[in-house]
Structures are given as C-alpha cells and as structure tokens.
C-alpha cells in the first residue's frame, strides 16, 4: 500500500467515524431536552370545564386554566352598556393587533365588541399583557366607587396594580397604559347551555 492511499483512507475513516459519532451525540440531546418539556399528564390537564351559572350577576371569578389565571365575569345589562362609547380611548378596539387577542369564534361584530360568545359571560385571560400581573376589577364607570385611583373618564373595567395598565369591561387596553395589547382571548366553547370548555 502506498503512503498516499493509506493517508486518504485514514482521513475518510476518521471523518466518517467522527461525523457519525457527532451525529449520535447530537441525537442524544433530543430525549434530554424533550424530557424537560411539559409531560403528557401536564398536557392532558390543558382543558378546563366551568359552569358559568355559578358566577352571580356582576361577579368576577378567577379560575386556573393550564396553570394560568382566567377571568370569568357575569356582566349585567348596565355593565354591558359600558362596552360602548369610548372607542377613541382604545389602542385596539377590534382586537386585531396580534393573533392572541382574537379567536375564530369572534365571527360577528357583537362578539368582537363584547369579546365573548354569550355577551354577558366574558371569559378572558387574566394576565396583564404588560408584565403578567392580574389586574384589579373596577367594573363601574367613573370615580364614584374608585376615587381618584382611576381617571375621571374611567369607562369601567380592570386596573392593574403593578404598573397601572387599564382595560375596559371587554378586556381591551386603554390608551396611556404601559400594556401593549388587549387581554388575550381564549379558545373556548359552550359544551352545554351553561358549561364552557376552555382549551
């Protein structure tokens, strides 16, 4: 065997063995990283059922869905009226800015405005889109119930205790808030007249 043939054969074997070894080592990373992702039982817990009739008129209930807080409110006719009349104060009145603030079920103007399937029951993410706190519920309009913690033209809705972000009674962010987006809309449906299934 000549010295030159020997060299190229060696280099080939060296690269082939080393390359395949490298591929195998890289493939080994997959199960280890994979194991850190949510486990099957965690994913199975990704749906939450809730009976909305347990929410009294005007009441706010916070429940957990996938470990994250969700607002469910039973909006009285008076609260539903607060949805209108302040469109000029909203950053994104039609929930179009990013995909997360709308859902396929928002398929007519009323559902876009009320951001709910049945107008009275609002089911919406309770995570402030600024830095993740849960905003406080200040449903009535004006300063009557809230003093000067809210602006004079307060339309009623949520006011975040962390950095002062404000949302209206449909969870739409109000101008001047540090929060960039409306509260995220959730993928839910009614499985019966009174039961919603989130997820």
């Amino acid at each position, binding site marked *: 065997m000549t010295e030159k043939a020997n060299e190229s054969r060696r280099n080939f074997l060296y690269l082939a063995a080393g390359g395949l070894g490298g591929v195998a080592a890289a493939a080994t990373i997959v*199960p280890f990283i994979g194991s*850190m992702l949510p*486990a*099957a039982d965690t994913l199975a817990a990704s749906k939450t059922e809730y009976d909305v009739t347990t929410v009294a008129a005007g009441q706010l209930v916070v429940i957990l869905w996938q470990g994250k807080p969700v607002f469910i409110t039973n909006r009285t006719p008076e609260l539903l009226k607060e949805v209108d009349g302040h469109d000029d104060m909203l950053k994104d009145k039609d929930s179009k800015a990013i995909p997360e603030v709308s859902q396929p079920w928002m398929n007519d103007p009323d559902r876009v405005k009320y951001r709910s399937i049945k107008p009275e029951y609002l089911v919406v993410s309770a995570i402030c889109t600024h830095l993740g706190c849960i905003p406080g519920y200040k449903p009535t309009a004006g300063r009557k119930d809230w003093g000067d913690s809210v602006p004079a033209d307060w339309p009623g809705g949520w006011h975040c205790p962390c950095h002062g972000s404000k949302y209206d009674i449909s969870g739409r962010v109000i101008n001047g808030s540090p929060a960039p987006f409306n509260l995220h809309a959730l993928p839910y449906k009614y499985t019966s007249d009174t039961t919603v299934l989130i997820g």
Partner: protein
Amino acid sequence: MLNSMMKTKIFAWVDRRTDAGAIIKSQLTEYPAPKNLNYMWNFGSLALLVLVLQILTGVFLAMYYKPSAAVSYGQYTVAFDSVERIMRDVNFGWLIRYMHAVGASAFFVVVYMHIGRGLYYGSYKEPRELLWIIGVVILLIMQGAAFFGYLLPWGQMSFWGATVITNLFGALPVIGEYLQQLLRGGFAVGDPTLNRFFSLHYLFPLLLAAIVGGHIHALHVVHSNNPEGIDLTKEEEKIMFHPYYTVKDAFGVGVFLLFYCYFVFFNPHAWGYFIEVDNYVPANALSTPPHIAPVWYLTPWYTILRSFPDKLVGVLAMGGSLAILFALPFLDRSKVRSARYRPVFKQMVILFFIDVIVLGYCGHEPPTPVLKLVGQVATAYYFAFFFLLLIVPKFEKTKPVPEGI
C-alpha cells in the same frame, strides 16, 4: 483535530491564562502509555463514561422524581407514583430511567472487569498501592450510591432491601441501635429515610467525580501497568496516549454502547437482574416479599453475610471482605506483578474470579441447604485467597519476566 484546535488564536488566549496547552501535552498528546496494553485496559475509560451517563440521566430524573413516602391519591405513595409518571407521562422518561437503571448495572460490570484486570496483572503493587486504595474507596462509594438509589422507587424490594441493610448496622454492639436510628431517621425505614437517601444519592456521585479525579491523577503520576507487569524504561516501549489510546478507548466505547443500548432498548430488566420485578409492587411495611435478594452486583457480599450462623460475625465478615481489599497491596509481597509469570497465583486468581461469581449466584438464589454450603465454601476461599497471598511468594517458582516489550 486537536492539533489544529491548539493553533487557534482563542486557544492561545486561553493558554496564556491557564497553561491549557501544557496540561493537554502532559496528560494526552505527550503522555506516554505502554504500547502493549490489551483490551482489558479499556474498562477504566468505560467506567468514566458510565459515571458521566449516570450523573447526566440522574440530574434529569431528579427534575421529576419526588422523594416522599406520603400516601398519594391512588393509595400508592408520592415517590412510587412519581417514578411511574416518569415512565408513562414524561417525554422520554422511560428512556432516561432505563438508561439510569441499566447504567447502574453497567457501571458495576465495567468496574468489576477493571478491578479483575488490576488483580490479574498485579496493578495494585508498588508503586501503585495508593492508586489501588483510591479505587477501593471508589468501589465503596459506588456501592453506597447504588444502595441509596435503590430505595428511591419505594417498591417492595427498595423497602425491604433498605430495611435489611440498615438492620446490619443494628447488629453492631453498643452503638448499633443508635447507628440504625441515625441512618433511618426513625424506628423503621420510612419517609425520613427516603428523603435522606435521596439527598445522599445526589451527593455520592459528586464525591465519586472528585475521587475519580484523584484516581486519574494518581495514575498519571505512577503511569499504567501493562500485561507483562514490568517497568518500562525504554522510549520505544511507549506510545502517546493521544491519538493511540483515545482511538482505542473510543472503539471500546462503541462496543460497550452496543451492549448498553441492547439492554436499554430491548431488555431493560435483564431477566430480573437489573430491575427486580417485585420492585413494581409498592412498598408495604406490613408484608415482606417471599424471596428477597439484593441486585446482582451486591449478591457476593450478601452471600458472605449469610454464610455465618452468628449475626454479628456475618456483618463483620461482610465488612471485612470489602475492607481486606485495602490491605491487598501489602499482603502480596511477590516482586513479580503479572499473573503471566506467576503460575500458582494465576490459578489462584482465576479460581478467585470463579469464586466471586459463585458467591454472586448463591446470593441471588433462595438459600437452600446445598447452596448454603456452597456459599460457605466460596466464602472460605474468598478469605483464603488473600491470606494465601502472604505465603505464596515463599514457594512459588515464578517464570522469568521479559527484559522489555
């Protein structure tokens, strides 16, 4: 590849601050190793590989394992359920757990081969006595780590194995009961025991990693023994560790992984040798399984324990059978290292290997009268081997060792 890497600017920057180049040279590229090492010398690097695999898989298992004996929703325990959750729900959890369980057995396979190699070729003799002694410390810590780990699934074998072993310490006079409570954190194996065993199971591999570093350092001071067991004085008898033995070790890793992957993917229980079937029954403090035996790598010592009719003597004999390994370099005074040139020692050491396998078999099986007798004979030879080494050099006619290789 190493050479071209060492020529880069980044390496030069690191080198000026750490002297990395000198370390690589003295430990790898200019570290001389005997040119006649056979495949028995692969098991050291394999042991290091398995240690790394065990630490890696263990860290990921600890992300999901919960060391609690509290009763869970399904009337099992939190610990047992968390292991089953790893098996069923965690992505690749089955793979990582089987890698860890098979890895425990694989660790002992390669380490026992490594120790057998050292025995056969006289690697424990001057100047490598301390290297051997550090190795025995590693073995003891490994056995401790394996024992602690075996409790964690909180199955029947976990529970009763830990009960039996902690009772061993109770056999000691005066301090026995105190020591037992110290280990268990209670009057029986229970939730506090599980918590501390998990803590120690995480600690021991860290100790191992440090002591393995010391083992390798000691090796690189006195250098490798070789199959001829002679001191190598001439330069042409040696080759550089890198690339020659890095490549040979890499080949050994490939062969090892074939076997390892066979067991991990196709036979993780290894017919009940690696994972005992009874351990899938949740721990029950009210009922002992009909047949209880440790995992295979501890059975030789278990046989020594039960070969003695007196509890205390049995416990001391078992401790002594491990402790005597520390004394080995000083018991065997023969100037010739390798069994190749020691006809009497060669037969003794091969019989010793068979003896340990027989001890292991006896410890794994239920104790019938015949097996008990076999175990007692094997125990007698186990100790006789070490004490015969004191007198063998006085009459053994060794063959002439070669001048060089």
